[in-house]
């Protein structure tokens, strides 16, 4: 063991990330093997209609298409940066589809797939990465909070929101009661805020699901630098259940999240779901993962691709025919074109909007600054400089 570096003891499961990060251990909940075989899990029965299976696959495909298009737009200078969800489609679509309309989701900056499930127009997401907005949609309307960039913060917001659900008496009924879900990453699990959220959620028995996408990396930092035991086990230190699900398995992600949400809404309190998955792309378009991880790791994970296995399942079950895929391709292409056009057409904000919405009730100091700046700008058009 090298001094000062993370420990290698018998407790450590993920110290040398390359060697171990693709193996999730026997505790992993899986309903669909990488080969597309449907398997059963006693705690997570699931039966979906063919339409539902197809809809899930459609989500996976469209969400990936959005992501690919956004990455391309960034490369072409239309976005400042993009945080790709490549590889995490199943975790996001599975959990996103498990949400009921009345539930409220608190994302990080990477939950484009969940946004899709909540009905947020992808163009709204692009606005943030293009730099025309720091937000972009009405969180209340979509019951999908704004992206939160400061790691971990949103887990406390979600917990407070969930406390409010309890205070409003909106816990109990299996159909109408509400729940909150907080998304965060493996890296985020080290932040004080996330652990405080666990304290609060547990003490207040809040109707919340903590959904951790363990994509094995926090930028260049492997999960083994954040924890020496599987992350889902963190929950047991706080007195609520944790479960590790195959995050590349959209059916398992759906079933496990749905149960956790139902437990929450019926008053059983919080659950931590660790979706074991993989960030197949760079951290963001600014990142260069070849500096810190081996190509072989990516290759190993490609065999577990969330789209491929669902596709194989649909084929094997004969749920789809060639026409389905063709139609989906066309829909994808249309979506991508719409996104591209919309992105290029997005106007830059008005300079004076700098001063808008700093407060609900603005101040004299800001009014004066705005006025002074407006005059300054007017001076230019008047040719003063």
């Amino acid at each position: 063991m090298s001094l000062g570096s993370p420990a290698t003891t018998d407790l450590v499961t993920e110290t040398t990330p390359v060697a171990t990060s693709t193996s999730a251990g026997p505790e992993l909940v899986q309903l669909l093997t990488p080969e597309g075989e449907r398997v059963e899990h006693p705690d997570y029965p699931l039966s979906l209609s063919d339409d539902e299976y197809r809809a899930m696959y459609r989500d996976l495909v469209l969400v990936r298409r959005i992501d690919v298009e956004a990455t391309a737009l960034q490369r072409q200078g239309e976005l400042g940066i993009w945080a790709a969800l490549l590889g995490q489609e199943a975790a996001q679509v599975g959990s996103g589809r498990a949400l009921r309309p009345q539930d409220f989701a608190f994302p990080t900056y990477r939950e484009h797939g969940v946004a899709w499930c909540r009905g947020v127009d992808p163009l709204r997401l692009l606005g943030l990465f293009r730099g025309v907005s720091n937000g972009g949609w009405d969180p209340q309307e979509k019951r999908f909070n704004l992206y939160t960039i400061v790691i971990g913060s949103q887990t406390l917001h979600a917990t407070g929101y969930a406390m409010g659900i309890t205070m409003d008496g909106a816990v109990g009924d299996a159909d109408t009661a509400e729940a909150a879900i907080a998304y965060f990453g493996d890296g985020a699990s080290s932040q004080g805020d996330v652990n405080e959220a666990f304290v609060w959620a547990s003490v207040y028995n809040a109707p919340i699901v903590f959904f951790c996408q363990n994509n094995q990396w926090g930028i260049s930092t492997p999960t083994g630098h954040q924890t020496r035991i599987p992350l889902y086990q963190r929950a047991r230190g706080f007195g609520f259940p944790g479960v590790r699900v195959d995050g590349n398995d959209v059916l398992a992600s759906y079933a496990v999240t749905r149960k956790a949400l139902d437990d929450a809404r019926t008053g059983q309190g919080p659950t931590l779901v660790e979706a074991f998955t993989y960030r197949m792309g760079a951290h963001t378009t600014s990142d260069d993962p070849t500096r810190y991880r081996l190509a072989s790791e990516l290759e190993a994970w490609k065999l577990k691709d969330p789209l491929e296995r669902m596709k194989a399942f649909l084929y094997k079950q004969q749920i789809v025919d060639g026409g389905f895929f063709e139609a989906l391709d066309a829909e994808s292409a249309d979506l991508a074109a719409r996104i591209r056009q919309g992105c290029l057409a997005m106007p830059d904000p008005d300079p004076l909007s700098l001063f808008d919405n700093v407060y609900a009730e603005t101040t004299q100091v800001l009014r004066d600054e705005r006025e002074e700046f407006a005059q300054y700008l007017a001076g230019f058009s008047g040719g003063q400089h």
Partner: protein
Amino acid sequence: MAQLTMAKALNEGLRKSMEDDAKVVIMGEDVGKLGGVFRVSDGLQKDFGEHRVMDTPLAESGIIGTAIGLAIRGYRPVCEIQFDGFVYPAFDQIVSQLAKIHARSAGQVKMPITVRIPFGGGIGAVEHHSESPEAYFAHTAGLKVVACSNPLDAYFMIQQAIASDDPVVFFEAKRRYWEKAEVDTSAVPAPLWHARVVRPGTDVTLVAYGPMVKTCLDAATAAEEEGRSLEVVDLRSLSPLDFPTVFASVRRTGRLVVVHEAPKSIGLGAEIAARCSEELYYEMEAPVLRVTGFDTPYPPSRLEEEYLPDLDRVLHAVDRSLGY
């Protein structure tokens, strides 16, 4: 009309807000059964229940972070930070979230959260219990910051802060908690963002807030005996600063001394000096002087009388100002 201490006036103000709006909830360490270490929320849990007055776990980031979530859900949380020196664990949630969510959401998400902080020294406490962190918050765009200095203001300002749709960091001059004054609860309060001339005068303006208002008033009384007429302005709002009121006063007197307990460098006094020096460039008869805490950590309590601006230091600065 009743004689109330400032702590009791705050308590009554909180009670009024809770009666007026069922969405108002109080949260913090020891605010419930104990009524807060300064008893500002005394009796409120008993009367409004544990779901409206919550004894939270011991973690300030958690208090502000969950309050933000409650605000998204439509609540109007009033968070108590037990002492000034314990707000820093919540700094990220305050500066990166609370202050920015309204702008981030283009006004779609309101953050009607009040963060109450007993602040300042002079009570003989141990480290971290006597700080004046207001400059950190007043420098932060998106926050509003106020400080109450007396029972009447306390009663109304806390209600106004709670009613505000913006996040308000609400500083309470802790060594003035026990000072009493008449509180006419039927009075019509001044707008929350207005400073107030609390004593008119003609020779020099003293600008202060929170605990130093009384110090300045005492100085003005003492100065009167020497035939000097000092005007005292209580800022009340530290962000936004009410420059029109300050400028008007300094235009009258031509001279300004700013007084605060916080360290001198990059404190509120610096901003007021900078603005007055610019705006009243042709009108000032002396440079703006500052009487403040030193640029040192708050000292052990047996040194706090040396550290804190007092009547003598204020008058010394008045002398200097008049010497120009």
